[in-house]
């Protein structure tokens, strides 16, 4: 278990947060997913990398947890606020505005599209790997990723880190 947490906590948390959009729920989902993975480890066949298998569990657990909690939550939480980066005040404001637009655009995506973008742009998975993790056909992955990237790029409006 120690090893699972050490090696996969960050990726698991990011995928959980991309689905739930709530840091507290994301931590709950991360714990659930890691426990499930740990318990199911003996049945892991090894025909895909362990990381992908754990991310698939995380995605499914997060969706399931979100469904259970949705009845209690009237309005889903926004992504956690981030401090603006950059040297000057003006650049900080620009960064802040760009990230706010980006956050809103990300919030407007459906959960699967958010996961696809995170798996691709942050975790660096290939199309085939995403198809395997999310158990979706390649054309669906491709179309959703294209649409999501486009919406997010429009929101960033030329912003560069």
């Amino acid at each position, binding site marked *: 278990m120690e090893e699972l947490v050490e090696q996969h906590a960050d990726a698991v948390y990011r995928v959980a947060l991309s689905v739930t959009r709530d840091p507290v729920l994301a931590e*709950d989902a991360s714990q659930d997913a890691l426990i499930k993975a740990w318990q199911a480890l003996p049945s892991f066949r090894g025909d895909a990398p362990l990381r992908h298998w754990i991310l698939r569990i995380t995605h499914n657990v997060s969706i399931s947890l979100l469904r259970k909690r949705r009845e209690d939550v009237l309005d889903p939480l926004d992504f956690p606020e981030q401090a603006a980066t950059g040297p000057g005040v003006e650049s900080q404001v620009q960064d802040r505005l760009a990230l706010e637009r980006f956050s809103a655009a990300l919030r407007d995506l459906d959960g699967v599209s958010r996961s696809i973008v995170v798996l691709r742009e942050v975790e660096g998975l290939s199309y085939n790997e995403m198809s395997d993790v999310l158990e979706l056909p390649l054309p669906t992955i491709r179309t959703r990723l294209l649409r999501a*990237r486009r919406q997010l790029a429009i929101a960033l409006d030329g912003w560069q880190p």
Partner: protein
Amino acid sequence: MKRPGHPSDRKLGQWIAGGDTTLDRHLASCSYCADRLESVHGESGEAIGEALRQLLSVPEELPERLRTGIDERIANRRDLTLIGEFFGLPLRTVRVFSSSEQEDE
């Protein structure tokens, strides 16, 4: 690089930036152009990745918090299983208690 019947790199770039929406249908079904978009994607891809990393930042103390939470959950489940065994409850019943206990957390 462009084949006849497919949009140019410039048009793909415009599409990514929110311009030409007439390409939507073509891009949804053309794997050749989807592959080309990967190379055109370049700079905006880096910006999207960086924005995502900032937005989905992982708390520094996350691994420790996860370890603590996981240990507590495993201990709770163990306790429930012991109680179930003591009262002779079927495993399925204990699992129901265990799962509702998690939901209540």
